[in-house]
């Protein structure tokens, strides 16, 4: 997991600082940045395609050994995997370009369909995790900076590193052990009880995002159930990001706290607490925007593990199911879509960062 290196990465504040040239308007920056998505996505799609084909064709991978050779050859021929690799590649690129990511081998569903069905659950989990990360990471980072190099700082920093050092699935298992098994206060797994899930499935215009659907039912019991199920996965995934936020906020508050304008304010007699709250803290939050962007990739990777731990039926959980079924068409499709999501999210985040901070431009 690029995980950590993501973390201090945030200090860079500016993405691709090495490409930064003086001058350039915002419009031009957005245009250049948007154009950069194309090669990125193209490279990713190509990489995944080439890698997956290095192993041979997906049908042999899924069925190899279980089917007689002639039937296997027939199915490979039907699916077109016996054509030259270049033809397959161009075919695949064309299909991806029109939004067709293939059909899964194991359950014959369109990959886009799988993504729409399960993507909402992953989105919901990522959203909860980000809330946990913000609520925990930012205030603690500020506190750590304020008590710099004294014991609270040490405690928070080690806590932040621990949050990073603990694999999400191990943290998930620990949380399950303590809160679901020993204390028996929170559900072990899943997104909701079976009863609530049935009701949620019948909601008019169900979004698949349980929180919204639960509001639509108007039943507080269901809403409570959905939230109770969300706590442990959200904490497991959120703490990882919280640790990153803590470090970023701490480092940035420390550096803004030493800035000239803070010294100036101090010499005018502004109280230390106010200096921290108003002068040093706010500008230190700007890099968080960039970090959130970098975290999206990490969150998605973490979501695969968290969802597997908690049987949270999202894209990550589905991905690990397909992996076990050796359905590599599905794996390839999901991986490519997630890569596109990450590329687009990074673009949006870069634009937001450029809007906030005029220094971040090409």
């Amino acid at each position, binding site marked *: *997991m*690029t*995980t*950590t*290196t993501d973390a*201090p*990465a945030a*200090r860079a*504040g500016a993405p691709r*600082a*090495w*490409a930064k040239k003086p001058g350039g308007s915002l419009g031009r920056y957005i245009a250049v940045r948007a154009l*950069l998505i194309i*090669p*990125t996505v193209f*490279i*990713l799609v190509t*990489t*995944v395609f080439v*890698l*997956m084909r*290095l*192993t041979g064709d997906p049908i042999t991978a899924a069925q190899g050994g279980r089917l007689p050779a002639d039937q296997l050859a027939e199915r490979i021929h039907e699916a077109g995997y016996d054509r030259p690799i270049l033809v397959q590649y161009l075919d695949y690129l064309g299909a991806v370009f029109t939004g067709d990511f293939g059909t899964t081998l194991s359950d014959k569903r369109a990959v886009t369909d799988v993504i729409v069905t399960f993507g909402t659950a992953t989105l919901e989990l990522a959203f909860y995790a980000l809330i946990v990360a913000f609520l925990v990471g930012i205030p603690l980072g500020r506190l750590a900076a304020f008590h710099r*190099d004294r014991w609270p*700082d*040490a405690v928070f*920093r*080690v806590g932040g*590193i621990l949050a*990073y*050092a*603990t*694999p999400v699935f*191990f943290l998930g*298992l*620990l949380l*399950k*052990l303590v809160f*679901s*098994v020993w204390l028996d206060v929170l559900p*072990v797994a899943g997104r909701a009880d079976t009863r609530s899930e049935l009701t949620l499935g019948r909601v008019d215009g169900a979004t698949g995002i349980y929180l919204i659907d639960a509001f639509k039912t108007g039943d507080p019991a269901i809403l409570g159930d959905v939230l109770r199920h969300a706590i442990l996965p959200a904490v497991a995934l959120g703490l990882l990001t919280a640790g990153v936020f803590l470090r970023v906020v701490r480092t940035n508050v420390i550096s803004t706290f*030493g800035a000239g304008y803070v010294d100036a304010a101090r010499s005018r007699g502004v109280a230390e607490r106010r200096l921290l709250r108003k002068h040093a803290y706010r500008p230190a939050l700007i890099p968080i925007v960039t970090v959130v962007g970098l975290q999206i*990739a990490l969150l*998605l*990777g973490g979501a*695969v*593990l968290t969802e*597997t731990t908690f049987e949270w039926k999202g894209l990550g959980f589905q991905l*690990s199911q397909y*992996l*076990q079924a*050796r359905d*590599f068409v599905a*794996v*390839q499709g999901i*991986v490519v879509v*997630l890569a596109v999501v*990450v*590329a687009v999210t*990074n673009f949006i985040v870069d634009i937001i960062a450029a809007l906030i901070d005029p220094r971040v431009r090409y």
Partner: protein
Amino acid sequence: MAAPASSRRPLWSRLPVIAQLRQSVGLQRGMLVTGLVLTAIFVLTAVFAPLLAPYGFAQLRGPDGPFGAQQPPSAEHWLGTTQGGYDVLSRLIWGSRTALLVIIVAVIASLLVGVALGLIAGYFGGWLDRVLVVVADAIYAFPSLLLAIVLAIVISGGQSSLWGGILAAALSITVIFIPQYLRVTRAEVIRIKSEAFVESARVIGAGHVRIMTRHVLRNSTRTLPLILTLNASEAILTLAGLGFLGFGIEPSAAAEWGYDLNKAMSDVTSGIWWTSVFPGTAIVLVVLGLTLVGESLNDLADPRLRKRAAGAEPVEDLGVDPGPAADPAMATTPETTKEGVR
């Protein structure tokens, strides 16, 4: 303040890590020392695994018959036994060996390839540089675990022997790391390329290869120890993540903590804690150790974050170290550190 004559200290004190250890004070030294101790314990455990482990990693029975599955900790099995009937302590100790091997292979491979590519990209520039940077960027933006999964499928087809599994994990991690080394080295190379001593080497008539290796490369390695430690910890997490998703190494081929945690998932629901808590804690401690070292190196390299011993305070804002610290191995400007950790 040190006299210029003493700026060349004995070799051992200029080595990375040791230099930083001497430089650190207070809390930072505490963190660095804790990290080094944890890392040392990890490495020693890995090296002496055959002596330390009471049983083999795939051993199912002792002199008195089978170990039995899911036995709680006892005198014979200090940390209990797993669902499959293995001794938890033994797999814990042998697991450190797998982790260390993966780290070594991954770090060496990505260092060699990444630094070489970064050197070429930075030194020659042009279209090759652009292509490499765009590709590196694309890979960097990719969720690394997903990339590792794809690579694990390619390399081992999912199920693996000891070396197959180690190579699968290590190489998938390598591909993720190469962009980072490439970026750091490239940034350094571009900076150093324009220095006067490179210019003079060129004037004398030194060839590209000689300039690249002798003059540029040697001066562009200062941020590498930092990324190296951070990547080592990341390698362990990726290995464990792969193992947890079922891409680990078969239990009969080697012990791997992530695989053990995967198998412990169902134990947790029935309140059996020893199968998951111990391997998980092992991962946490090793990653913690490596990260503490990396973090401390990072802080020490960043003048804004470095805490100084009393008496060395006044130069804070210059970004330059006083006296002996002006050694290129240590004085890193904030800019390069930023690049370094991306």
